[in-house]
């Protein structure tokens, strides 16, 4: 019974489900460090999904799909940055506007470009390649876990490491964090905090477009209206859990993927779907309580220290 539930395909399933979350969350944590909590990721993912399909369909190349998605990501990142950084608008309102805009735009373009409503699939859409490492074939466990994933799965793992190094080991990463924490300090050393915020916003657009392209070209090869299906919001939750630390955020996204995968499997075991669909949210609440409690303890300790100093 348990071996049917917890086996290697569960890990595979977890990785597949978590990758779009990981990619989007990596983008969102960059803006989070720059002091912007981006809830527009949902819309950004959707745009990436759509333009990925457009590029792949018309140029018969998945690379062109990704490129077009990235261009869309850059543009929407600039628009987001323009409103939030340049005009100082409320980041939540702009985020919601982007979500509504993306949903409306993709529906509209789906009709005007492909002449269909709701869903578009075609054999002419070229999916992203899947990778396998020849050496791993002989090791059963590693073969199942690491082989035969869509290319963005590996890219997402590399990005976790790169963004960690960027944020904590390079001067630019420090600037980015300073632009969120203490922009005045950044200005005194002659770096524009505006520029750093813009950069983070554009990077977020690009990473969300990766997540979208992965969804429509890597994971599936089709587009349906609102196919991002709240993944952008779950990515926000992963960022908050992970304290915007790339590695912890990655772990949080994997956790969401894991419980999603586990839920589907438990249904086959006869557990009612109402219960299994509740699991990710129950885990969210429990985790939030733990995170907040730890945070409070830290603040408390900090205060005691301060008091002790006097």
């Amino acid at each position, binding site marked *: 019974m348990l071996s049917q539930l917890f086996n290697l395909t569960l890990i595979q399933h977890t990785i597949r489900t978590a990758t779009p979350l990981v990619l989007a969350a990596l983008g969102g944590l960059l803006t989070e460090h720059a002091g912007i909590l981006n809830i527009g990721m949902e819309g950004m993912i959707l745009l990436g999904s759509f333009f990925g399909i457009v590029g792949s369909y018309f140029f018969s190349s998945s690379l062109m799909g990704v490129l077009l998605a990235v261009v869309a990501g850059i543009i929407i990142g600039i628009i987001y940055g323009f409103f939030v950084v*340049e*005009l100082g608008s409320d980041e939540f309102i702009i985020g919601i506007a982007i979500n509504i805009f993306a949903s409306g735009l993709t*529906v509209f373009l789906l009709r005007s470009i492909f002449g269909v409503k*709701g*869903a578009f699939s075609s054999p002419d859409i070229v999916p992203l390649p899947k990778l396998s490492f020849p050496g791993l074939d002989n090791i059963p466990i590693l073969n199942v876990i690491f082989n035969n994933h869509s290319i963005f799965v590996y890219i997402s793992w590399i990005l976790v490491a790169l963004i960690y190094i960027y944020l904590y080991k390079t001067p630019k990463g420090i600037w980015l964090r300073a632009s969120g924490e203490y922009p005045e300090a950044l200005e005194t050393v002659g770096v524009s905090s505006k520029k750093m915020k813009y950069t983070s916003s554009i990077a977020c657009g690009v990473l969300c477009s990766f997540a979208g392209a992965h969804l429509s070209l890597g994971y599936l090869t089709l587009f349906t209206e609102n196919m991002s*299906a709240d993944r952008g919001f779950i990515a926000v939750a992963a960022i908050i859990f992970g304290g915007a630390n790339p590695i912890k955020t990655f772990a949080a996204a994997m956790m969401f993927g894991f419980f999603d995968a586990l839920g589907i499997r438990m249904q*086959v075991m006869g557990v009612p779907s109402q219960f299994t669909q509740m699991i990710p949210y129950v885990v969210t609440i429990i985790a939030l309580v733990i995170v907040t409690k730890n945070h409070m303890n830290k603040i408390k300790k900090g205060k005691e220290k301060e008091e002790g100093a006097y």
Partner: protein
Amino acid sequence: MKKRLSLLLVLVLAVSSLLAGCGKGNEGKEETKPATEEAKEQKVGLVVAGGLGDRSFYDSSNEGVEKAKEDLGIEYKVYECRNDPQLYKDQLIQASEYAPIVAVVGLEFYDAVQEVAKEFPNVNYIYVDTEIEGIDNLTTISYVENEGSFLTGALAAMLTQETSIEGIDEGKVIGMVGGKDIPVIRNFKAGYEAGAKYIDPEVKVETIYAGDFEDPAKGKESALALYSRGADIVYSVAGKTGEGVFEAAKESGKYAIGVDTDQRYINPDVIVASMVKRVGMSIYDTIERIQKDTLEPGKVYYYGLEENGVELSFGEPGMKQFATDEMIEKLTDIKKKIVNNEIEVPTGK
């Protein structure tokens, strides 16, 4: 100043995308030319909870009014709500102001349609896919989806034992991916399971509810889980989520069965059949009844196998067929028995 400008732009963005979402709905208002009583009778408003293009339920209802336009000479307008509950009532009222016949599609309208029907006593409401009795101007159409699913289950159970077909293995397991655990879907499940057991009591039926009608990625994951547990054929009863089921079938080299409309064309190599609900036909029928004045308003009309309201559909000629003549014969036989009440199909509602 800048803040105000940006707020304005945001509003423009939000409003324009909302308008894009329900463009057709607003057209209804423009046509307020005074119509005579007879001319009014020729108009039909179609209100759908989601949007057209689901290649399934809503599209089928649209085909019905389209056919009524050609054959019965009506005019119609479609009011889409894009799954936004705030629009349900508004769009219903808009449609009621536009036409004396309003066809309503989507379980989501259950409360709204009853309220609006009381406000417009002169409008005839045709509400599809549920049962409401006792409101004089509200006629409901209920599909006996468990009967159609009984045939689907029988077909799947026969196919899973046809090991000569590539990809079908020895095990007798079939699966189903449901959108949500709600009465309609449970009714599908009850018929599907009973049909499979009727062919062979040893066939195992496994069901996963994706919990969403609009998430193809989740549909794919659910179907992959079923295929990995030995299911050869998965019945997709999940709207757009079902698109992911078909992808999973292709990737695993297994098979799927579509729902609501004939979905074989999406991928004839893996979708072996579809359980069709003739939503369009039943709406067409009802409009015809209203025109001929034979409708009994306030009644529930049932559309099962006998009325051809539900049936198995095998795509267009020229598509590769997986069901053998023998199977078709057997299915015809079962259909006859259900119609004659020799087989009693359980319900899941």
